[in-house]
């Protein structure tokens, strides 16, 4: 089974600034995928960004980018130019390539201050 650790329960950032969320994971598999999901108060999980473990290039999606360190089993999310709408809970998740079940971390609450 995979374990996913998010060591920052809460993060606060000023609007327009940058915040980085950390995530570490543990898996013995080689074929897996990594995700960051955003969960606003409505509780719907919204995909922010995904990374295939076999790709060395870090994924980028507009203001969101990741720093994937495979050897260290680390997968951090950087939110640039933070906006008030980014305020939410953020979850890191690992999915194996074969059966593709997602294992989630405990989440990090991000608050963007005006």
């Amino acid at each position, binding site marked *: 089974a995979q374990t*996913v650790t998010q060591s920052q329960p809460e993060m606060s950032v000023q609007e327009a600034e940058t915040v980085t969320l950390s995530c570490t994971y543990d898996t013995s598999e080689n074929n897996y*995928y990594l*995700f960051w*999901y955003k969960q606003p108060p*409505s*509780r*719907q*999980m*919204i*995909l922010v960004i*995904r990374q*295939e473990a076999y790709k060395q290039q870090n994924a980028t999606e507009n203001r969101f980018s990741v720093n994937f360190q495979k050897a260290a089993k680390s997968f951090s999310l950087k939110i640039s130019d933070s906006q008030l709408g980014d305020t939410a809970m953020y*979850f890191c*998740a690992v*999915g194996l*390539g*074969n*059966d*593709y*079940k*997602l*294992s*989630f*971390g*405990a*989440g990090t609450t991000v608050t963007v201050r005006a």
Partner: protein
Amino acid sequence: EAGVAQSPRYKIIEKRQSVAFWCNPISGHATLYWYQQILGQGPKLLIQFQNNGVVDDSQLPKDRFSAERLKGVDSTLKIQPAKLEDSAVYLCASSISLGGNTIYFGEGSWLTVV
């Protein structure tokens, strides 16, 4: 494209009563998941279907929880009898198939057991 639909959105029941949640995945999605998310935690997989077959139900408390996906499309999750610790958001999700495809989540069904 319509997203993952869930109902009811909110339910309050007394302990020992029963409840059922319904999920309709995105059209054409063969894989369907039910997750349980307790307040302050990340989602935990309860059961995973591939078409109308169960891929994994190892985390489903089978003495009180049951789920079915008879025609390989929509699915029902039932709890009987409910316990106080079942209070959570029940998230349904779907993906085209196994193996690396993006998993899309519904808005969730909030259950409060009193």
